[in-house]
């Protein structure tokens, strides 16, 4: 324990961090709550000396907007699709990486690359890969051209090119691209955590299983997965939290319109909705949406923790 006479020193050293946190974290949080409960709060009007009624009007209004419901639906859908897929794939890749000897380091690096690359930049690369199904030419002589490597592949195997992300593309085509992109982007972190977990598993458990003639599939389900359960819980919980904050990945592929040309905002997320409200000076509604997002993340995380209490065994 620190000598009580010395405690002022400790506080002194902590002071810069505390001040910064108060100004840039604690106050904005408090202010967000305050703004959310001031009906019709508007950044410009308050400068003009207007006062606002206290109430839950911002919340009821936000919930009534179709655009908010769309954002909520998109966000939920992305979470529900990407978290299980990416966790499962990461688990398989981590186990595979852990069991090979040659090229292990090289492959580890390759799998980790998306983590250190800018997600907007990757988004643009993905946009190029899934790009263009277009009509060139006139008077009945349409030439369909595809420039994206994915469609080139589909054509190589004799399939019809799909309009993934361009004008006129379907919602599910867009969603598929988003799921592929988000899963790919989420893999490195999950692989890293799970691989770390695998490497800390005592090798003797596997020797013991070998002595007992345990089939590989059973080793995986009865030993590897349970022993990894703390790490699995961790990547699933952080995966959901990250998923609910999804925004930049969609900007990366579809731009700030959050949708293909001709259907803007179709793929908007809650965070996207909040950002949209800000330039319109709808701070009250943006704050309300942010608090709703917080509540959702809180509830989902609590549920996750409850489940993992039963599933994480030791």
């Amino acid at each position: 324990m620190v000598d009580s006479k010395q405690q002022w020193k400790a506080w002194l050293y902590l002071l810069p961090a505390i001040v910064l946190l108060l100004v840039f974290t604690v106050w904005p949080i408090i202010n967000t709550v305050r703004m959310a409960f001031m009906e019709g709060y508007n950044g410009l009007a308050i400068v003009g000396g207007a006062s606002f009624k206290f109430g839950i009007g911002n919340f009821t209004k936000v919930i009534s907007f179709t655009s908010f419901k769309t954002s909520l639906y998109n966000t939920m859908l992305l979470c529900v699709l990407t978290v299980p897929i990416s966790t499962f794939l990461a688990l398989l890749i981590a186990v595979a990486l852990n069991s090979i000897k040659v090229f292990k380091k090289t492959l580890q690096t390759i799998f980790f690359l998306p983590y250190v690359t800018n997600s907007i930049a990757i988004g643009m690369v993905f946009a190029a890969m899934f790009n263009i199904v277009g009509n060139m030419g006139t008077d009945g002589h349409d030439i369909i051209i595809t420039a994206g490597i994915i469609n080139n592949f589909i054509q190589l195997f004799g399939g019809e090119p799909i309009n993934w992300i361009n004008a006129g593309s379907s919602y599910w085509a867009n969603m598929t691209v988003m799921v592929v992109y988000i899963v790919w982007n989420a893999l490195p972190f999950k692989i890293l955590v799970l691989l770390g977990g695998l490497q800390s598993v005592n090798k003797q458990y596997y020797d013991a299983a070998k002595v007992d003639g345990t089939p590989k599939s059973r080793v995986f389900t009865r030993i590897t997965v349970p022993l990894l359960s703390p790490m699995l819980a961790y990547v699933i919980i952080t995966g959901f939290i990250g998923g609910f904050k999804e925004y930049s990945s969609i900007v990366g592929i579809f731009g700030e319109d959050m949708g293909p040309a001709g259907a803007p905002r179709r793929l908007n997320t809650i965070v996207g909705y909040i950002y949209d409200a800000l330039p319109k000076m709808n701070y009250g509604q943006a704050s309300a949406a942010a608090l709703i997002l917080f509540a959702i993340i809180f509830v989902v995380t609590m549920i996750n923790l409850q489940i993992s209490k039963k599933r994480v065994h030791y």
Partner: protein
Amino acid sequence: MKVVLQNLTKVFPNRDKKAGNDVVAVSDFNLEIPDGKLIGLLGPSGCGKSTTLYMISGLQKPTGGRIFFGDDDVTEISTENRGIGLVFQNYALYPHMTVLQNILFPLQNLKGADKLSKADMLERAHEAAKLVQIDELMERKPSELSGGQQQRVAIARALVKMPRVLLLDEPLSNLDARLRLQTREEIRRIQKETGITTVFVTHDQEEAMSISDMIVVMKLGVVQQTGKPQDVYDDPVNLFVAKFLGTPPINVLAGKVEGGKVYIGDEAVLEISGVEDREVYIGIRPEGFELDDNGPLSCELSNVEVMGRDVSVVSKNPASVNPVIRSIIDADNKVDLSAGVVKYRVKPHKFFLFDRETEERIRYEVK
């Protein structure tokens, strides 16, 4: 099940490839383990005893030599088909499973004709648990058990498949002194009750001597001596074995044989025949000394430790290789500390001679 090891050799490639020297962990190991016996592989760390055990288990492949279980050559047979039970040094109990699930696990892996019904599995698991006296703890997780209880669970898990051979890697090393004593008797009892040929590895000579039917003393991958514990203790083939067995350890002194007498310093302590004049190491077991005021060996008395039944006399002699000479004598003998000098006679059957160079035993006859 008789287990035979023939010219068993294990060479590990050196990690530092440039250095190039391969590490010979086990060299040309020959041993026949009779059916139903308990064998202790004994040696200091790095002597290859665990490697030998893991080669018997099949988890490690020998570089050379063959392993037989009965008449079956199992050298090329994989671990799971050898019919062995293995208890790991840290037990390797699955932490997420209860005791019962841990014991059931090997049975659930059985396939084809060996497959058991659920009821049979439970019965076998409970039988195994009863044998090691943990049937009260079946619903606990390993983390809720003491070290000794975990050890028993590990043994139950190894026994439940009714292995042909049971292998134990340092079974007592994770237990405290009291539990160690209790558990080693327990292992002996279980082994006797099941009659399964059992091989265990230890660096603790007392542990090995106390429960084994037969011990194998190893050093740097080479078997030094094999035999019944008492025989090996009474008749060591070299200085290493003599030093390794026994607590307190054997007293080693530098001396020489001259004209049919063994000299320590300028004192002739024993008359012998059959050995030409030469420099030797002399090994005298602590119990090989007798107090005798007219005895030929005199030492500077430094301390007497009373242990109840016996006393341990600590003394010094310039010829001693160890800092002190420790002798164990009956407590009825009174040692006068103020005398400053203690005089001994030596018992010839506790008195060994070893070559100065090779440290091999030199046999002699007492005159």
